[in-house]
């Protein structure tokens, strides 16, 4: 693989996301598990430290913790669920938000550079937990029949439209939501990472292995593009964490909302 000798370019694909186990023989201990575990440690350490001596006049650490906590508590949970019931869901929503955020941003942190949620299992489990929670609180509040009526029969729709409305609403409100939640998060992380891989690996190939000076010049531009895409990805990573938690909060809010 020296410069000037053309070799075949292997485009990045799903196989690039399959990292070998960190400890040989322990198959479950992979890079995403390590990153996720680290994120849990960091989140708990940070918020425990910030809230341990929570006082009227906050320290700098407490202030930073309150900033993050208030963001989820007020801007997401309270706005979407309403001030009557939101406090019950703040712990889950806060944990979920910072878990997704840190694991997404891990794709940009040097040396880690792996988005946990590009492995769809993590996205599935987060979406299923949100799905279970919003359905459970809805059923708990309105009863099984009342909840299904609430979710599938919108007020103000004429009765002859009901045969059409009920399946549509059921599919959109009950069946599709966990899939859309998980796929949106997974696909953004997966695609963003693969895009980055294409530009970095492609640039590397063009600069070092294409054997052509012209293509090498394009390769340098490709590297610069990769930098720009990394910046864009950082934005996407934060946005996806926000969207996932906002949607979860909105599903909870609509599940327990009173008829109007």
């Amino acid at each position, binding site marked *: 693989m020296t410069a000037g000798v053309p070799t075949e370019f292997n*485009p990045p*694909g*799903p*196989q690039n*996301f*399959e990292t070998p186990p960190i400890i040989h023989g322990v*198959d*479950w201990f*992979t890079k*995403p*598990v390590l990153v*996720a*575990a680290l*994120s*849990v440690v960091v*989140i*708990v350490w940070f*918020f*425990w430290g*910030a*809230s*341990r001596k*929570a*006082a*009227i006049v*906050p320290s700098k650490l*407490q202030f930073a*913790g*309150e900033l993050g*906590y208030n963001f989820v508590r007020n801007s997401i949970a309270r706005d979407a669920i309403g001030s009557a019931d939101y*406090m019950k869901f*703040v*712990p*889950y929503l*806060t*944990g*979920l938000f*910072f*878990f997704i955020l840190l694991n997404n941003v891990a794709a940009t942190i040097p040396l880690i550079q792996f988005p946990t949620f*590009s*492995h*769809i*299992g*993590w996205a*599935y*489990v*987060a979406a299923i*937990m949100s799905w279970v929670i919003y359905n459970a609180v809805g059923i708990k509040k309105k009863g099984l029949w009342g909840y299904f009526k609430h979710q599938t029969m919108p007020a103000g729709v004429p009765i002859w439209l009901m045969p059409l409305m009920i399946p549509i609403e059921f599919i959109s409100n009950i069946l599709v939501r966990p899939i859309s939640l998980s796929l949106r998060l*997974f696909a953004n992380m*997966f695609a963003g990472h693969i895009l980055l891989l294409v530009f970095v690996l492609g640039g590397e190939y063009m600069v070092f292995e294409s054997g052509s000076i012209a293509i090498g010049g394009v390769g340098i531009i490709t590297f610069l593009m990769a930098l720009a895409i990394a910046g864009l990805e950082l934005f996407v990573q934060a946005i996806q964490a926000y969207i996932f938690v906002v949607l979860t909060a909105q599903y909870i809010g609509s599940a327990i909302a009173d008829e109007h």
Partner: protein
Amino acid sequence: MLTLLLPLTEAADEAPSPLLPHTAEIIFGFVFLVLLAIAFAKVVVPKFEKAYADRTAAIEGGMNEAKAAQAEAKAALDKYNAQLAEARQEAAKIREDAREQGAQIIAEMREQANAEAERIVTHARAQIDAERTQAVASLRGEVGTMATTLAGRIVGESLEDEARQRRTVERFLAELEESESARQAVGTDG
């Protein structure tokens, strides 16, 4: 190319489909999310909420305290204003009374002084009358005596010349003066 577009149909010897989850990751994902939710529910949220409640209470307490202080200050001000108004009223009343009393005293004094003056005048007039009556009576008697004595002298002595005559008159007048002063001395004693 087709295997890239449809990863679910990929051959078994290549990487598995990215849409198929790893069981371990499902389990870890669940454990981690539950752990985080519990950590937030048990520690972080109560601590922060307590700090918020304390903060609210501190702010409200401070505001209530300020409100109470303000009310107290206003009450004190009202009290002082009321006292001031009362004092002013009282002062006005006292001034009014004093003026009335002063006028009354002046009127009384004037009346008294008038009465006194009248009394003094009446008394003096009565005394003068009495003294004059007395003087007239005594004068009347003395003039008679003097006239008699003078007449006797004039008749009894020979009036040889003018000088002698003058001497006689002068002697008489001197005697008269003498007796006058003697009488006066006696009169003042009486």
